[in-house]
């Protein structure tokens, strides 16, 4: 008799269906796994054999074939262990066929028969729900993650957490384990505790720029010497951005789940937090690490930063190749990685914050402490041009705040600033359906109406500063956000002035 269990394999940030079919037939004892298994899947034979034996079952001395369909999809990872074991037991008649009916499985087996969590439980549970399956069996540590789609209102199925292979005997009975989310809301969309904008003191213009970035989703460049608070500020940006919608939260959680970023609680409880992610890769990162790649393709930092903030500190130290690789994610909001067999699309819609010292030594050419040559300083700044330049709408030079300011009163809290940001973002969404940073030239013409004085100021900015066409667009985008923050329908002269102050300067 053939037993069929639904399992999944991960590719990019999605779960793909893999049906495990197991046939236990008479013949010379053998155990083979077919259907493009990778090393981890082929080794699952050994784990399954021991786990079955050590869970009070009997491993059949028969000819066993486990087939993973579709046969042309490359399967990776240990997540098929549980499905194969269940298939063996059902096919051998040690478990009733009803036990695995309408059931998906995702867990790794230990030799003693206990089960281990695998990455991607959330994506798999979501996919199981889409397939109309009744339940998904996972290791207890992944239960909270697997229950997430239901909590966020996606199509979903029941989550059955188990501790060991023997628990399969409870499936379909009244003793079937079930997962109930803890009393507190499982999805907490409030930002990271302990990180708050009020810690940013004595830098009012930086606060204002961050608020503009949060409201409009603009890319930002912070220029300043070491210790000026560039990282501190960037780290606080997610706390003032609009809360994630359910759909966005799902995207963020799915990526975190597939990439193994969710550190599950040992007891399977505790809230999973869906914050806007903050990613700050080190400047030695490879292009593949930044945008994703490898075989099978894995998500890079830009995908982990999806719906959140990607912070590139020491921009001038990143390799040019890495920065050039950012072009596609910045322009399209996703990365496409093509391999011979398939291509994977990884979402990557993030707010870019770049920080750099004004020159290689960090003090700035105006400072008497600086000993960089003019050429070196210029070459350093030139890194900013190219792929990133078009996405950086806002640039601000900062310096170390004075000791008095640091000791002074705390600034406005994230919660207060976020209220204004949410209002401004809502205005943008109801007007054009996207954040201001995503306004293209045609949309700018349609949605950004300038008052007469604003037009005059923009054209005088144009002639005095020699703004390029794109520079022009950037000023209008930022001015639109400033007007949204101030609650104005029409962009006024003061909005243009604000945007001109924040404009990215010609670094040549």
């Amino acid at each position, binding site marked *: 008799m053939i037993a069929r269990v639904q399992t999944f394999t991960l590719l990019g940030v999605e779960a793909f269906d893999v049906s495990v079919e197991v046939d236990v037939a008479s013949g010379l004892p053998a155990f083979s796994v077919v259907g493009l298994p990778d090393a981890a899947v082929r080794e699952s034979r050994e784990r399954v054999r021991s786990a079955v034996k050590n869970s009070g079952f009997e491993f059949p001395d028969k000819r066993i074939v486990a087939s993973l369909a579709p046969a042309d999809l490359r399967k990776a990872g240990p997540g098929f262990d549980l499905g194969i074991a269940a298939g063996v037991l059902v096919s051998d008649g040690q478990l009733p066929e009803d036990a695995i009916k309408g059931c998906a499985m995702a867990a790794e087996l230990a030799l003693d028969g206990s089960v281990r969590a695998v990455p991607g439980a959330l994506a798999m549970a979501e996919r199981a729900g889409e397939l109309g399956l009744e339940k998904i069996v996972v290791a207890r540590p992944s239960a909270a993650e697997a229950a997430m789609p239901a909590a966020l209102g996606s199509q979903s199925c029941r989550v059955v957490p188990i501790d060991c292979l023997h628990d399969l005997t409870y499936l379909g009975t009244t003793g079937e384990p079930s997962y109930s989310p803890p009393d507190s809301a499982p999805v907490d969309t409030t930002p990271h505790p302990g990180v708050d904008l009020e810690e940013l003191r004595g830098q*009012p*213009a930086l606060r204002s720029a961050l608020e503009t970035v949060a409201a409009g989703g603009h890319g930002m460049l912070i220029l300043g010497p070491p210790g000026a608070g560039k990282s501190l500020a960037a780290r606080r940006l997610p706390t003032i951005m609009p809360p994630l919608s359910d759909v966005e939260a799902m995207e963020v959680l799915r990526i975190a789940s597939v990439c193994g970023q969710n550190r599950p609680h040992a007891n399977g409880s505790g809230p999973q937090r869906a914050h806007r992610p903050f990613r700050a890769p080190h400047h030695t990162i490879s292009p593949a690490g930044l945008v994703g790649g490898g075989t099978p393709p894995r998500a890079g930092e830009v995908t982990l930063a999806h719906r959140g903030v990607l912070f590139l500190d020491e921009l001038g130290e990143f390799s040019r190749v890495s920065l050039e690789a950012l072009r596609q994610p910045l322009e399209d909001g996703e990365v496409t990685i093509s391999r011979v067999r398939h291509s994977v699309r990884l979402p990557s819609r993030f707010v870019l914050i770049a920080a750099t010292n004004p020159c290689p030594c960090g003090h700035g050419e105006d400072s008497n402490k600086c000993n960089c040559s003019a050429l070196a300083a210029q070459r350093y700044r030139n890194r900013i041009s190219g792929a990133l330049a078009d996405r950086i709408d806002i640039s601000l*030079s900062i310096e170390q*705040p004075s000791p008095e300011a640091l000791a002074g009163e705390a600034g406005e809290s994230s919660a207060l600033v976020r209220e204004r940001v949410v209002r401004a973002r809502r205005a943008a969404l109801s007007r054009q359906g996207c954040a201001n940073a995503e306004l293209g030239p045609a949309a700018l013409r349609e949605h950004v109406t300038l008052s007469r004085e604003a037009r005059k100021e923009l054209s005088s900015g144009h002639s005095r500063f020699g703004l390029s066409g794109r520079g022009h667009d950037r000023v209008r985008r930022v001015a639109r956000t400033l007007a949204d923050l101030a609650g104005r329908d029409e962009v006024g002269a003061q909005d243009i002035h604000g945007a001109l*102050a924040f404009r990215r300067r010609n670094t040549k």
Partner: protein
Amino acid sequence: MRTRQNSAEWRIRRGERGWPECLVELSAVDEEEPEVLYGYGAMDLLAEFGPDRTVTIVGSRRSGAYGREVARELGFGAASAGLLVVSGMALGCDSAAHEGALDANGATMAVLGGPAGVPYPRSKEPLYRRILASGGAVVSEQPPGTEIHPSFFPARNRIMAALAGWTVIVEGAHRSGTQHTVKQAAQLGREVMAVPGPVNSSLSELPNELLSEGAPVVRDAQDLLDHVLGPGQSRVRGMGAELEPALLDVLIAVEAGAGTCDAVAVALGLDGHDAAVTLARLELMGYVAGNAVGRYSRTQLTPPIP
């Protein structure tokens, strides 16, 4: 600012107290020294500024933007260094030189071809009034009521040339009124300087020719001041539009070393956004400039004293 003078017409005869002595030299070069000068505005300008503290800035009537801009800058620079700027109130360079001097709240005098009571050309009447209001003067050798005649204009050029120790030629073609002024000044032994121009522009024929003959080059007001007052004696400062108090406060903060929006906001207790907006306005007006990394510093431009 100079005090406002009675706008009644005055006249001064040759040899009277206050008559500009330098005009006597005209007779030495077989030119006619005027008998009487009629004028409006500050009569004492004639005696107050001798030729050693007076520059005449002249140029073509049909000047280009280049000529007007340079004339304006020279007028401003000379006047703010305390020199009297003399010109003919003609269209183009002449008027620009007067305007520059007026923007600097300095002293300027227009020598007209027709009678001093009649603004000529008519379109320059606002400038005429502005010169008088600022404490400047308008003079002419023609008695009131005289009909304007084309021959008056070359004649007044000799007065302009004689009044000043230095004459700057901004733009001018061959066989122009400007060339006439050059000739007069050279005969009087006054120094003639010229502003270089594009070699393919007829407007630059005269200054470029003067330069090739060895006239001192005037590239900017600093060159002019270096010649008149001695090298490095006076630094040129630019001119700017008027500033409201909030802008002036920020400008002073930048002058005191606040180089970023944050520093300005903290120094003045401003909101970060307001500081950014104000700095952008000052940058648009040219009072401050941001460098490649966006740090602000003060430019040469000075705000008019309120």
